């Protein structure tokens, strides 16, 4: 298990790691000047624009792409999102939050057979659909689920 995790970390490209940091709020996109920074996708204001930026115009829902998010967020500021792709030759996984001002939160790229399994903490501004997009052999696959962000209180 540890070996696998190390492989993932070693093999994920710089853009993936940095995207994670942006999602966590540690870096602003302008601080990231990697050559392969996908400006069009990350700065899109809607899901359609972000998908276009990723080159994922056409995509299909896949049961082999697992998206694990809470039904109701315990804290909208740090929502745990896990994505696992069982699609052969998965080369990237992106996570989008439909209602966020910039829906594309992170893109992770996998090389050298790294396990396509990512875990991130995302901020949700409000109740929103969360979407995972995996790329494999040039094709795009999606999975999505609604995460509710609520004022809380009053239960029980």
């Amino acid at each position, binding site marked *: 298990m540890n070996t696998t995790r190390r492989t993932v970390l070693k093999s994920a490209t710089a853009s993936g790691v940095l995207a994670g940091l942006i999602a966590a709020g540690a870096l602003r996109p302008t601080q990231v000047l990697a050559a392969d920074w996908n400006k069009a996708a990350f700065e899109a204001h809607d899901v359609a624009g972000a998908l276009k930026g990723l080159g994922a115009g056409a995509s299909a829902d896949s049961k082999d792409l697992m998206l694990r998010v809470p*039904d109701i967020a315990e804290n909208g500021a740090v929502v745990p999102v896990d994505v696992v792709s069982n699609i052969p030759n998965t080369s990237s996984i992106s996570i989008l939050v439909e209602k966020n001002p910039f829906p594309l939160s992170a893109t992770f790229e996998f090389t050298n057979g790294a396990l396509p399994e990512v875990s991130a903490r995302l901020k949700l501004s409000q109740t929103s659909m969360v979407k995972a997009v995996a790329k494999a052999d040039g094709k795009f696959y999606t999975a999505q689920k609604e995460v509710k962000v*609520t004022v809380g209180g*009053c239960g*029980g």
Partner: protein
Amino acid sequence: MSSMNRREFLQMLAAASVAGAALDSRPLLAAGNADALYDLPKFGNVHFMHFTDCHAQLLPIWFREPSVNLGIGTALGQAPHLVGEHLLKAFNIKPGTREAHAFTYLDFVQAAKTYGKVGGFAHLATLVKRLRAQRPGALLLDGGDTWQGSATALWSKGQDMVDACKLLGVDMMSGHWEFTLGDKRVQEIVVKDLKGRIEFLAQNIKTTDFGDPVFPPYAMREMNGVQVAVIGQAFPYTPIANPRYMMADWTFGIQDENMQKMVDEVRAKGAKVVVVLSHNGMDVDLKMATRVTGIDAILGGHTHDGVPQPVTVKNAGGQTLVTNAGSNGKFLAVLDFDVRGGKVQDFRYKLLPIFSNLLPADAEMAGYIDKVRAPHKAKLEEKLAVTEGLLYRRGNFNGSWDQLILDAIMEVKGADIGFSPGFRWGTTLLPGSAITFEHLMDQTAITYPYSTLNEMKGERVKEILEDIADNLYNPDPYYQQGGDMVRVGGMNYTCDPNAKAGSRISDMRLHDKPMAADKTYKVAGWAPVDPSATGEPVWDVVGRWLKDKKTVSTRKVNVPKLIGMKGNPGIA
């Protein structure tokens, strides 16, 4: 039947004839069925006793079941969303009987006088002992919401209930309000008090950092030669419904993937009977039963539904029974399985109401309760006022107890609008009763009791109402939290439970005038989940108001106008 009961019975007959009431069969049945009610023949070889959501009620109380418990979407007209006659009809219970009184609000005041109080740990203990004697090896399961709900539980940080449960012989428990004592206190109780006596189980609580389990997910026992497993499921939305800072290092959620893993694990270890002790709430349990396979029964709580019979849910692996066992110590459920050839062949289930005058108090438990209360007796019994009307809480939109709290906090704080949380615990008082400090605490005893006064724009008021309405009426149970709607004083509104999130609330009015989105209103409330909130404890605010009034007239219960609920069997 004890002589005391006979005397009460005769008094009832006398009262009925003096009042000129038609002498129906009810009082006769009340007396005649006393022993028959609890004479439950043993069935099979695996036995569970289950109570849940007793909310620290050590003494007998009254508890009025709801007259509004709406089901929408696929829950429409299905248990537990049946009230009054609809519930009686669905479960084939004869109207006007002791059982009809236990399960419904019908003719509540008169029936409560006829049949007396319900619950009480000393009476529960007597029944548990009787059942245990008949059913060797039976496990006693407590679904949680046990360490909160009374003055003595609050003042002893749950200790009075922990010791009462040990004395009662609880074998396993899960939790929800327990966590509002703070994660450290819960850990302390588990380590110091429960160790070797009561297993605290929760498959769905992990640490926020590394995702390590906080409690054992399940426990296994051999019962009469059969391996059985009990998996714990704590309330999935504790950090949302209650202040998150109280359990900041733990994460909850429904986690049905992990539930499936646990079921498979205990089956692999040889469990022939798998039971989930759940604090999900019944709607969530019903959905979980369609998704997770291999569970024989989900013994549920949280939503305080007294459901006379289990709902059988079919799923890919066979079927799962889903139950809910009411609240406030009013019921004890008995589930018997006949396990032969490594398989459950058949079952029997009974949700027994605890009528305290039919079950003599267990001397040891009664003595313990007296001892716990003795140092606080004067404070608990302090008389604050007399109520002219019936005071109750339970119901989707409001109850007269919450109306009283709303009236008090709005008047004391000079607010336009009052909000009182949609808690489902809280006992009932009959008309003409004294309201003691203890009764007030039965409605308010929480660890974040601050009363608040905030200025809010009309827009924000709507947002809050919409948000809470979605927690109650989202058509997908996994997005529900299981409380009732926030109680609202001062203003009126219209609610369409079938509408989409964000558009259920309309026609908000204050003193008959439409409210404005950008106008500021003064809103009084209590029980804020915000970590920075402070304020005078609500029981002091309401207590002062009660003492000032001396006699509280019957409250006019403010409820919203409903759209699309005509003919819904979840409303009286």
